[in-house]
C-alpha cells in the first residue's frame, strides 16, 4: 500500500464513524436506541440486512472460493427468496403486531418464560461467539496483507464499531450500513472491471469466459443430488431455505433490522429487496473470483498467496523442487489456455477436445504443486489444514490494482467486517437488556435507566468481541468449531418458532422439550453422520415439530391455549 492508499483507507474509516455518529443523534430513548422508534424506510433496512449478513470473511473467501472451486457456492442462496416470502407472510406481521423488541419476547407471549429464556441463552452463546470470530477472521487476513500485528487490526476495527454503535444504537448501525453497502457495490463493480481490464490485450472478455468455463469455474448450478455435497440445487433450495428461515426469522441480529420499520409493508419490502438482490450480488462476487482465476492463468501468481507462509517455505530445502514443478505447470497451462482460445475462435471441435485434455492435465499438475506447497506450509508454520483461499483476492488487489483503488477496496473489506460486527453487538445488547436485564434483573425502572443499560451492554459486547478476537490465535481448532455453531442451533430455533406460529395446539412443554429433542438430533447428525451442515437445519426443525406435537398430546388444555 502506498501513501494515497493509506489516505483513502483512513478517510473512509473516518467517514463511516462520522456518518454513524451523525445519523445516530437523538437516540435518547430505549425505543429509538433499540428500534429506531420504528421510523426506518425499507431501503435502509434492506441494505442493513444485507450488510449485517455480508461479513468481510464472506467477501474475501467467496472470491477465493470461485477461484478454487467455481461458482457453485451461489446455490447456497437459492432458498433465500422462498424464505423471505414465508417470513413476509408470517413473522413480519406477527412481530410487528406483538410490538416486541426481540423475537424471543414473542415466545414468552405464546409459550412461557422458560422457552423464552432457553432460546435467548442459545442466541447469546451462538451470536456472542460469532461476534468474536467475525472480527478475528478478517483481522488476521488484513494483518497479514498490511503487515500489522493482528491485534492492531482487531482493536482498530473493534473500537471504531463500538464508538458509533454504543453512541447511536440501531439508527447509527443502520445508516452506517447503508453507506457501507453503497460503497461495497461500487467497489465490486470496480474490482470486476479491473480484473477484466488487466487481462492481456490478446485475451478478450469472451476468451476469458472460454478459459473460465474450460476450467470448470462457471458452474453456478449442480443438478446432481448428493447428501454430502454442500452445494447443489437441492441442498440450496431446501437446506438453504431452512437456514435462511432460521437466520432471518429467529436470529435477533436480522429480526432487529426489520423491527425498525415504519410499517409492516416497509419491513416486508426490505426483505423482498434482499430476496431479489442477494443472489445476483453473490453471483457477481463469485464471477469476480472466476475472472481473477483467468487473470492468474496468464499472470504467474506465487505458489502460495499467503505472503508470510510463502516466505517461510522459501527457506525450506523442498521449496526449489515445488517451485520448479509449479512454474512448469503454469507455463503449460498458459500455453493450453492460449490454444483453447484459438480452438474456440476457429470452431475446431476435434482440436478443442485435444487442447482441453492438455489444459486439464496442466491444471492438475499446478494444483498438485500448490498442494505440496500447502502441505509444506502446514508443516513449517504448524498450521494444520493450511489453506490460502482467503488471500487470493487480497493478493490480486494489493499487487495489481492502481494506487488509491487498493486503499478503497481494503477499506471496503474493513467496512464489511465492521457492519457485520455492529449488527451483532447491537442485537446482543438488545437481548441482554430486554430478555435478561429487564425480564430478570430489574423489571421496573425509568426509560433513562434502561437506555444506559443498553449502552453499557453494547460497549460490553463490543469489548468482549475485541478481547475474544485479540486472543483468537490461541483458540486453534475452536475457531473451526465456532464456525459450525450457527448450523448446530438454527434448526432448533426455527422449529420452536414454527410451532409457535403454525401449531396452536402445542403448549409450553411441547415447545421447550421439542427444542431439546431437536438439538439432540442435530448433534447426533453432526457426530455420527457425514451429512452436509445445510441439512442440519431441516433435521432440527422437523424433530422439534414432531417432538412438540407428541409432547403436546400429554399437556393439559390450559397449558396449550396460551
Amino acid at each position, binding site marked *: 500500500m502506498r501513501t494515497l492508499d493509506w489516505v483513502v483507507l483512513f478517510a473512509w474509516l473516518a467517514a463511516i464513524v462520522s456518518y454513524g455518529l451523525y445519523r445516530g443523534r437523538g437516540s435518547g430513548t430505549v425505543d429509538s436506541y433499540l428500534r429506531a422508534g420504528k421510523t426506518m424506510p425499507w431501503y435502509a433496512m434492506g441494505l442493513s440486512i444485507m450488510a449485517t449478513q455480508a461479513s468481510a470473511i464472506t467477501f474475501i473467501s467467496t472470491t477465493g472460493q470461485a477461484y478454487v472451486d467455481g461458482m457453485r457456492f451461489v446455490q447456497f442462496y437459492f432458498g433465500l427468496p422462498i424464505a423471505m416470502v414465508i417470513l413476509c407472510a408470517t413473522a413480519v406481521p406477527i412481530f410487528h403486531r406483538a410490538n416486541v423488541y426481540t423475537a424471543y419476547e414473542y415466545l414468552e407471549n405464546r409459550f412461557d418464560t422458560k422457552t423464552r429464556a432457553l432460546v435467548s441463552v442459545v442466541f447469546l452463546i451462538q451470536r456472542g461467539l460469532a461476534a468474536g470470530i467475525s472480527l478475528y477472521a478478517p483481522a488476521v487476513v488484513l494483518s497479514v496483507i498490511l503487515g500489522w500485528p493482528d491485534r492492531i487490526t482487531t482493536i482498530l476495527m473493534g473500537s471504531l464499531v463500538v464508538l458509533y454503535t454504543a453512541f447511536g444504537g440501531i439508527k447509527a448501525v443502520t445508516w452506517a450500513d447503508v453507506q457501507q453497502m453503497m460503497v461495497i457495490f461500487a467497489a465490486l463493480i470496480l474490482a470486476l472491471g479491473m480484473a477484466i481490464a488487466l487481462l492481456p490485450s490478446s485475451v478478450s472478455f469472451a476468451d476469458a469466459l472460454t478459459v473460465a468455463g474450460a476450467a470448470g469455474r462457471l458452474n453456478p448450478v449442480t443438478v446432481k443430488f448428493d447428501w454430502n455435497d454442500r452445494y447443489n440445487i437441492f441442498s440450496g433450495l431446501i437446506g438453504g431455505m431452512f437456514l435462511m428461515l432460521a437466520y432471518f426469522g429467529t436470529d435477533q441480529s436480522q429480526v432487529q433490522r426489520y423491527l425498525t420499520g415504519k*410499517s409492516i409493508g416497509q419491513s416486508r419490502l426490505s426483505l423482498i429487496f434482499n430476496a431479489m438482490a442477494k443472489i445476483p450480488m453473490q453471483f457477481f462476487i463469485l464471477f469476480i473470483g472466476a475472472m481473477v482465476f483467468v487473470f492468474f492463468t496468464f499472470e504467474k501468481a506465487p505458489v502460495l498467496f499467503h505472503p508470510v507462509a510463502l516466505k517461510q517455505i522459501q527457506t525450506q530445502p523442498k521449496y526449489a523442487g515445488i517451485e520448479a514443478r509449479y512454474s512448469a505447470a503454469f507455463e503449460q497451462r498458459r500455453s493450453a489456455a492460449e490454444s483453447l482460445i484459438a480452438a474456440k475462435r476457429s470452431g475446431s471441435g476435434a482440436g478443442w477436445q485435444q487442447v482441453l485434455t492438455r489444459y486439464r492435465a496442466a491444471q492438475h499438475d499446478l494444483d498438485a504443486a500448490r498442494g505440496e506447497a500447502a502441505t509444506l506450509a502446514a508443516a513449517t508454520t504448524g498450521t494444520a489444514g493450511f489453506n490460502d483461499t482467503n488471500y487470493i483476492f487480497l493478493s490480486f488487489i494489493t499487487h495489481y490494482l492502481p494506487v488509491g483503488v487498493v486503499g478503497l477496496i481494503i477499506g471496503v473489506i474493513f467496512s464489511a467486517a465492521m457492519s457485520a460486527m455492529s449488527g451483532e453487538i447491537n442485537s446482543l445488547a438488545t437481548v441482554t437488556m430486554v430478555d435478561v436485564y429487564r425480564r430478570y434483573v430489574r423489571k421496573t425502572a425509568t426509560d433513562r435507566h434502561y437506555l444506559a443499560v443498553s449502552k453499557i451492554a453494547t460497549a460490553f459486547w463490543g469489548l468482549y468481541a475485541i478481547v475474544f478476537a485479540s486472543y483468537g490465535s490461541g483458540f486453534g481448532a475452536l475457531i473451526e468449531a465456532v464456525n459450525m455453531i450457527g448450523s448446530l442451533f438454527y434448526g432448533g430455533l426455527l422449529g420452536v418458532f414454527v410451532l409457535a406460529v403454525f401449531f396452536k395446539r402445542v403448549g409450553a412443554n411441547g415447545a421447550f422439550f421439542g427444542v431439546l429433542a431437536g438439538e439432540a438430533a442435530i448433534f447426533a447428525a453432526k457426530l455420527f453422520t457425514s451429512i452436509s451442515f445445510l441439512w442440519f437445519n431441516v433435521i432440527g426443525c422437523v424433530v422439534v415439530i414432531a417432538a412438540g406435537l407428541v409432547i403436546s398430546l400429554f399437556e393439559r388444555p390450559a397449558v396449550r391455549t396460551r
Partner: protein
Amino acid sequence: MPDSKQVLDEPPPFLRTWPRVYTMVLIYLACLIAVFYAFTRWFAP
C-alpha cells in the same frame, strides 16, 4: 411484554396485493435458476 398494538398493514407500492408480490419473487427465482442453469451448460467444458 409490551402490549400488542394496531400496526399499519398497507398494500405494496406495486402489483396491488402482497400475494402477487410473493408470486413475482418466486417466478423471479425460477427465472434466475433457469438462467444460471443455461449459463452452466453453455460454459461447461
